[in-house]
């Protein structure tokens, strides 16, 4: 209840989406409005861009989900009985495998967050490190970025195995409407996740080329938030496919 306190000091908290500069939007007189002044502004802009970018991704999946619901309730003409019948045949999902995959993705979301906090801390300490004679020890840091990418790859392999299991059970892409949607939704989600993994790999690789830590931090920060979104999106898709099957 900050508003009840006589003095409230708001400090953006590193590692909690606070950023390094107080938020001020262009046009309100609070900011210089000069475009590209510092990494703090660039980080905020990148986060804003990500937030905006999530809208069409959500719309994409919502439209597929609405198509799923419409198709599920749609009667189909049956030429044998010459009547309209319900032909929705739920796909026999490999639940155990999907749960394991969900666990992998949850773990990767956690490691992505650790990577984000790690690089935020490194970026904050970078100016101190550059002072001659100042040493902060040899903090190499655990490679959370690589672990995240590995777990993400594990999730994708797990999804592939789940597809194979579905195929073993007789559910292919064009078997029926339900299986078409299952393959489509999981594939679309996998592609979005793979995109995030490529960006994380990029962030890891550019560290080898001595890119400024602040620039890398922006990439890792935004991708980590994206990764969390992809995890939540998967939970939503999984629940949708399971409970509305």
């Amino acid at each position, binding site marked *: 209840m900050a508003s009840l306190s006589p003095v409230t000091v708001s400090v953006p908290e590193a590692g909690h989406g606070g950023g390094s500069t107080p938020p001020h*939007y*262009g*046009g*309100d*007189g609070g*900011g*210089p*409005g*000069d*475009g*590209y*002044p510092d990494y703090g*502004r660039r980080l*905020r*802009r990148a986060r*804003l*861009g990500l937030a*905006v*970018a999530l*809208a*069409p*991704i*959500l*719309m*994409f*999946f919502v*439209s*597929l989900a609405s*198509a799923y619901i*419409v*198709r599920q309730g*749609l009667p*189909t*003409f049956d*030429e044998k009985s010459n009547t309209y019948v319900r*032909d929705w045949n739920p796909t026999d999902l490999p639940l155990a495998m999907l749960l394991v995959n969900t666990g992998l993705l949850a773990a990767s979301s956690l490691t992505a967050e650790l990577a984000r906090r790690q690089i935020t801390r490194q970026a904050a300490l970078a100016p101190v490190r550059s002072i001659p004679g100042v040493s902060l020890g040899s903090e190499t840091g655990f490679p959370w970025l690589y672990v995240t990418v590995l777990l993400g790859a594990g999730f994708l392999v797990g999804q592939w195995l789940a597809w194979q299991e579905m195929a073993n059970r007789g559910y292919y*892409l*064009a078997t*029926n*409407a339900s299986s*078409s949607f299952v393959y*489509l939704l999981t594939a*679309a989600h996998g592609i979005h996740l793979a995109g995030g993994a490529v960006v994380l790999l990029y962030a890891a690789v550019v560290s080898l080329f001595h890119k400024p830590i602040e620039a890398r931090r922006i990439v890792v920060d935004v991708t980590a938030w994206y990764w969390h979104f992809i995890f939540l999106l998967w939970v939503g898709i999984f629940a949708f496919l399971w409970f509305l099957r």
Partner: protein
Amino acid sequence: MATSAPVHAHAAPQGFIRRYVFSLDHKVIGLQYYFLALVAVFVGMFLSLLMRIHLIWPTAILPGIGEIKPETYLSLLTMHGTIMVFFVLTTAPQSGFGNYFLPIQIGAPDMAFPVLNMLSFWTTFAAFVVLVSAFFVSGGAPLHGWTGYAPLSALTNSGPGEQLGADLWITSIALFCVASLMGALNFITTILDLRAKGMTMMRMPLTCWAWFVTAILGLLAFGVLLSAGILLLLDRNLGTSFYVPLVVVNGQPMGHRGGSPLLWQHLFWFFGHPEVYIAILPGMGVTSQVLSTFSRKPIFGYKAMVYAIMAIGFLGFVVWGHHMFMSGMSPYSAFAFSIMTMLIGVPSAIKTFNWLGTIHNGRVRFQSPMLYAIGFVSLFVSGGLSGPFLAQPVLDIPLHDTYFVVGHFHLIMGVAAIFGIFAATCYWFPKMFGRMMNETLGRVHFVITLIGTYAIFMPMHYLGMAGQTRRYSQFTEVPYMTRLIPLQTFMSYAAFITIGAQLIFLINLFWSMFKGPKASDNPWEATTLEWTTATPPPHDNFGGHTPVVHHGPYEYSVPGAAKDYVMQTDPAGAAAH
């Protein structure tokens, strides 16, 4: 002009490739979009020329083309609609002028994400190339119309153009969706984050508001079209049945079952109707800008205009069902869609009356940008008045798929938006190219195009009421339609003259680009930020500085001010009132 840190994300490029081809500069990208749309509009117009020739001389053998068969005619109308809607009406007003002038009008050095901006243009370019390549593959271009209705579009053997040509069409649309999403993301972030000091949202020019709301519409609509297109590709190539029910073609079952063609219609029109406003809203913004500037009056009801843009944007998302009254939807749904559709008339009327209020008692300067803006209002009203007719199911059912609908949407969405492009071209040409366009050629072009447009599209309403169906390649031997042939002939001749007149615009554009008289920095005595900077603007838009804004965008005829306009950056003007 107050100053602050002179910074820019990327230095001015030196080489030709980085400067003019893979440029990160929003101004160059804006021009790239503009010229892409210019090429597209002439391709689209050429296709319409062929259609108009075929409609009155159906057996004519055209040099280099031969006889236009019915399926060729369908391909022509498909490609004409697709090119015009996506690569002209969506590309030029939003991506072209928006890219060039949005950052400058809000006082920013560039778009928020310049690399994304470049990617967006080149993806659009690739989409155009893929689309046009459909003409040159086996079977030719698709014939399912720009709306791509299933199952015609979902079956590879439903017509000669429905093989590879249709796949290319869908791929092109998907690429265009991705490009538009990147563009919309950039526009929204730029407006929210890069406005100069003092440029509050309610001090933004109405052009920026229009680009902003258009970007939001694109952001929410193109993702849906993308998903719809992917389902279509799967149906066509991987045997799924999202859109295709049990279908038998030439005695052969197609192997699909259970799909719903109406699903495509819902998904398509959920995108398709906002697309109408994606095409027209930027034109509304430019018209507001030009009417105020050339009437030497503040825009009438600035806040009402902003709220009207928002209302149009919102309502645009809840009316898609009015395209589907014939689909057998529940009368209750039809009633709801009908009411919501007619509600759009309210903010549209607010805008129209405010435009008239802006001109009223103004010291109007009838220069070519103003003429085109007045033409926009005229066409918007003429096309808009038939909207409430089509919004009512009881009237839409007999008029559906007739020329009445063709006349309606060409006037309000097609030509009105094109007049917005003309107005924007003439208005901003001095800033973009540092020279003035030829006024005489502009006036001649305006008069011929306005009269020609009405001559082409107004009779379509009568044809529609007389029962003439659209998309038919030949009607010369249909008894009840033969009586309408003189009107069709008149429309075709009007089209020939109007299309020919576009060469005047083209000549004016390119001649003025190199030979026009030099323009001053603010030839129209306008107030917004683009007129405070050099002509053409430097790489970082404001020569190492960023402007500080003190006023709204339409401070004309301010009592006590030294001149009849006060620039947005003028601190002295602030003291004057």
